């Protein structure tokens, strides 16, 4: 295997120089010491951190560590068997599934909460009282680049003010999901906007510019309500609730905030479940996540979905509901889990 060879070369290179003579690889495997290792998305991190905190309070002696390497970094460690659980803000991708299969890693995919992508504007913005998904597409599609630069370009009647756009990093699951459901194709977006991996930077940007528009997870709106104004979104499909909707828990759960709500996941390595502490941690996670997710700013899964997730875990259903493809708008978790 290519990477084996690579690591051999590097080991040889370094074994020569390192003073602390290195024992053979995989010396310190934390996966063998009663420690549950979680890593991945920074979006899911607050949920896993909360569960880990509670778990350690009730299960003394078992350690849980949570890292933030991004969903991509988390899956890389996951398919190599380096961590037990991945926090993922998007479903596993085809390339990652191939690697998992190649390494003989099987996994259970468990949705744990919803995130509602919130579209926000400056509080001084008096005109954008609602936007349709078509208008969002008009603003964010690749064709808009350099053309839709003023609010009046978005809708006749909006003032002739410059439109400054702020969005999450192009490397984030939030960006992937937004482009998929709004622009119809993952990663299809205009490029002339300010992006940042740190969503607080978007908060600062939108609250500092009158003509600004940005989007991010609902937790960032909830924590900064006084500096931002949320824009209700209308998908113009009456079956998903008529008229523009705000990203509230009710609207996310009943589906009327479609298509801008997305599920967040954890992935558990089947093999790791042989260790009692991992199995205990995951069942504890699914028991507690309902209250903890909303406490840290996300929308909890409704009971009927959560029950399905729990039984999915209990019967160890391996594989992904999405088959390596991006999430499609309009397919609810309840339908998928059925």
């Amino acid at each position, binding site marked *: 295997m290519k990477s084996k060879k*690579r*690591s051999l070369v*590097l*080991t040889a*290179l*370094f074994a020569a120089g*390192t*003073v*602390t003579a*290195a024992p*053979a*690889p*995989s*010396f*310190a*495997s*934390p996966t063998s010491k009663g*420690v549950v*290792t979680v*890593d991945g998305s*920074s979006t899911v*991190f*607050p949920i*896993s*951190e*909360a569960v*880990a*905190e509670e778990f*350690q309070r009730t299960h003394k002696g078992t*350690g*849980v*560590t*949570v*890292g*933030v*390497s991004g969903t991509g*970094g988390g899956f890389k*460690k996951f398919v190599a068997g*380096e961590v037990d659980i991945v926090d993922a803000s998007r479903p596993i991708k085809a390339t990652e599934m191939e690697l998992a299969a190649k390494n003989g890693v099987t996994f259970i995919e468990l949705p744990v909460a919803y995130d509602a992508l919130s579209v926000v504007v400056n509080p001084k913005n008096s005109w954008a009282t609602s936007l349709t998904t078509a208008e969002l597409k008009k603003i964010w599609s690749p064709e808009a680049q350099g053309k839709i630069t003023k609010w009046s370009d978005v809708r006749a009647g909006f003032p002739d003010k410059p439109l400054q756009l702020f969005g999450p990093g192009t490397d984030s699951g939030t960006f992937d999901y937004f482009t998929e459901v709004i622009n119809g194709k993952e990663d299809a977006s205009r490029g002339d906007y300010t992006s940042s991996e*740190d*969503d*607080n930077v978007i*908060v600062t940007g939108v609250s500092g510019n009158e003509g600004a528009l940005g989007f991010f*997870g609902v*937790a*960032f709106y*909830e*924590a*900064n309500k006084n500096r931002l104004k949320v824009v209700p979104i209308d998908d113009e499909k009456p079956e998903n609730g008529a008229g523009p909707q705000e990203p509230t828990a009710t609207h996310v759960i009943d589906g009327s905030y479609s298509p801008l709500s997305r599920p967040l996941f954890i992935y558990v390595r089947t093999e790791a479940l042989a260790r009692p502490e991992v199995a205990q941690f995951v069942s504890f996670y699914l028991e507690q996540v309902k209250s*903890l997710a909303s*406490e*840290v*700013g996300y929308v909890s899964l409704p009971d009927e979905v959560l029950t399905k997730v729990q039984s999915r875990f209990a019967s160890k259903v391996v594989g992904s509901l999405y088959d390596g493809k991006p999430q499609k708008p309009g397919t609810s978790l309840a339908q998928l889990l059925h």
Partner: protein
Amino acid sequence: MEATSTTQTLSPGAGAFSTAKKRPLLAHPMTEKAFIFFARGIISVALLTLIALIADVAIDGYERLTWNFFTAFPSRKAENAGILAAWTGSLWLLLLTITIALPVGVGAAVYLEEYGSKGPFTKLVELCIANLAGVPSVIYGILGLQVFVRSLGFERSLLSGALTLALLALPIIIMASREALRTVPKGYREGALALGATRWQTTRTQVLPVAIPGIATGCILAFSRAIGETAPLITLGALTYVAQVPNSVFSPFTALPIQAFNWLSRPQPEFHTNAAAAITVLLAFMIMLNLLAIIIRAKYQTRQR
């Protein structure tokens, strides 16, 4: 310093040449006054910036600096969250980095100053050191991830973090130590060698003791820089939530800058306060290290006279 004192006796540009009525701009006393004024202005701005930076952070974080903050693990509730894992992690990281980098760095400096001939090997080493001193710290993180975490199988342990930071600090330590060794007068070495001491005996008994204060100062500054590094630990994949105090070099760890960075990226302003408090602790720690360097330097300078 010497140069300043001697030149001052000669200085005032009142020589025969400059008494002419039309002086060039640079010779005019007003120009000099203006220059000094300007220089002091710049220094004051730098000083004020430093004070503003520290004060800004300290004021933001001050209210969270309670005993509990130092003895608690991270939590989803900002008011319960603490930096126990982070500060112990940073301390371990610092001690381990010193253990690894100090002998190697001083050893390398001794070799280059006391043993090295001007051969191609020395030239190559010097080139690499100069180059490594300017390599961006993120790149050290990438190196650490591939080599220590993956290839050597140390996982994301304290050892991987310390080795990465040690590599990062090495060029600075080597350069500072060489500088210190160079200030040791030649006579010290020649005397010992003439008495029949070997090169190592000379180095160990004559050169190193004199150079130690200089080495220490340089190294303290290098290490205080290393513990403030964020980017390499991020690329290395240092953990963020750890609720245990490290107990071995293979323990998973978090560190103050990582914890602060994570809190800063949270939406709730209370976490930002925590981040400011964590940075205040880090800054206080660095100021203490710098003070230590000043004390050592002051002692050293008086002894020289």
